[in-house]
């Protein structure tokens, strides 16, 4: 069978896809945090340009963004190879979409929580990460997990620029076998690739659901410096 015959070639494409999507997810998260910070900045000359940039990125087709970064940035003296060019453009797009998810999540935490954190002496970063973020997580995670699957799917756009990922491998395999053996195996190869992508996205959703369950659990008090989660005594009694 064709797929088994060229499995190492396709496997290499899959590994590249995994690497490319990891870069896109990491970059997307970075830009999402940066844009979210920009969107909630106090100074208008920072907030408004970021808002305009985010809106443009959300309204322009992703395909156009990918091609634009690839064709226009060299004019500004920034030349990337197809891999980093597609990684950058999809990351920025993911960041624009993620920024709104993160901001909406942070806004969903009642302002009383922020005030309570301040009154307990948790200022700035400490209050944000110990009080606000854990409570925002149940709101942020579901849309964020679906954004992560979108980013994984968007890694296939690398094929348009010629990155050697799964879709590009499939295209090469189809071209070569069509020339060498006659008769296009396109439906078989593309069908198989669709299934692989589906399995990939499905496992990401499953992982995300696990993470969501973790954050949905009520808080337990941690015991001092050890950092180990030990249930409070009263809680133990009530459960036994």
């Amino acid at each position: 069978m064709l797929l088994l015959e060229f499995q190492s070639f396709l496997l290499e494409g899959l590994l590249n896809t995994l690497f490319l999507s990891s870069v896109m997810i990491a970059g997307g998260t970075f830009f999402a945090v940066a844009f979210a910070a920009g969107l909630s900045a106090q100074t208008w000359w920072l907030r408004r340009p970021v808002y305009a940039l985010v809106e443009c990125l959300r309204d322009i087709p992703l395909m156009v963004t990918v091609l634009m970064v690839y064709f226009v940035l060299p004019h500004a003296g920034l030349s990337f190879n197809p891999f980093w060019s597609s990684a950058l453009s999809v990351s920025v797009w993911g960041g624009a979409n993620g920024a709104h998810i993160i901001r909406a999540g942070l806004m969903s935490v009642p302002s009383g929580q922020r005030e309570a954190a301040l009154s307990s002496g948790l200022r700035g970063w400490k209050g944000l990460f110990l009080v606000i973020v854990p409570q925002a997580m149940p709101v942020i995670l579901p849309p964020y997990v679906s954004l992560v699957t979108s980013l994984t799917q968007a890694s296939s756009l690398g094929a348009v620029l010629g990155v050697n990922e799964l879709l590009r491998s499939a295209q090469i395999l189809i071209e070569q076998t069509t020339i060498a053996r006659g008769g296009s195996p396109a439906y078989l190869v593309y069908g198989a690739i669709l299934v692989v992508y589906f399995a990939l996205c499905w496992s990401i959703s499953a992982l995300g659901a696990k993470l969501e369950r973790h954050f949905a659990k009520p808080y337990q008090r941690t015991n001092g410096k050890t950092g180990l989660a030990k249930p409070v005594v009263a809680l133990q009694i009530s459960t036994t």
Partner: protein
Amino acid sequence: MDFAYILEALPDLMTGLKMTLIVSFLAIFLSCLIGLLGAVLRTSGIKPLQYAVTAYVEFIRGTPYLVQIFFIFYGLPSLGLRFSIFWSGVIALTAWASAFQIENFRAGLAAVGRGMHDASASLGLKRWQHSVFIVLPLATRAALPSAMNTIVATVKNSAYLQAIGLVELTFVAVDRIAYDFRAIEMFASICVIYLICVFTISGLGYMVERRLSRPFGGR
């Protein structure tokens, strides 16, 4: 930025825009029909149909759109289904948008409470009257914001069809860049055109939404 060049390229861009709009509107129309039908099937209570629709939605949403396009354009001919570039594009875009519209309309149907059913039964409405005059308007209202999002996304996603060589807006721009190397001018103009399209459609959607959100009153 060379505006004279943009002006010179404008007729080409407009033919591209025309193709973008034709493909998008066909896909929007078909996907709304299929979405409504799929949503009705999914809530019909007939188990095999429900599973089939759910599997379709999950599969389309879980796979890259670009691979779907390639599967339809390059894969289907070897199974005996040969379509032109244009119709492959319409089918791919419709297949993608339908999955999302099914979800939107399903949520809309779910938003119509059980109480409506009892109310129309007590008023003596027949089943079809209940579906057409009560459920449909209410479900449309509830589904409209997310359906508008999908419609806008459909227009944006028509840009992917340049990958199979459909001569639409993005294809025209990339094609001209290959000859003239005026990347900045071309991308600036298609970005502006896409933004105008998106804002127009979401503006229209907002107007319809406001009109529909007025409570139904006696005229």
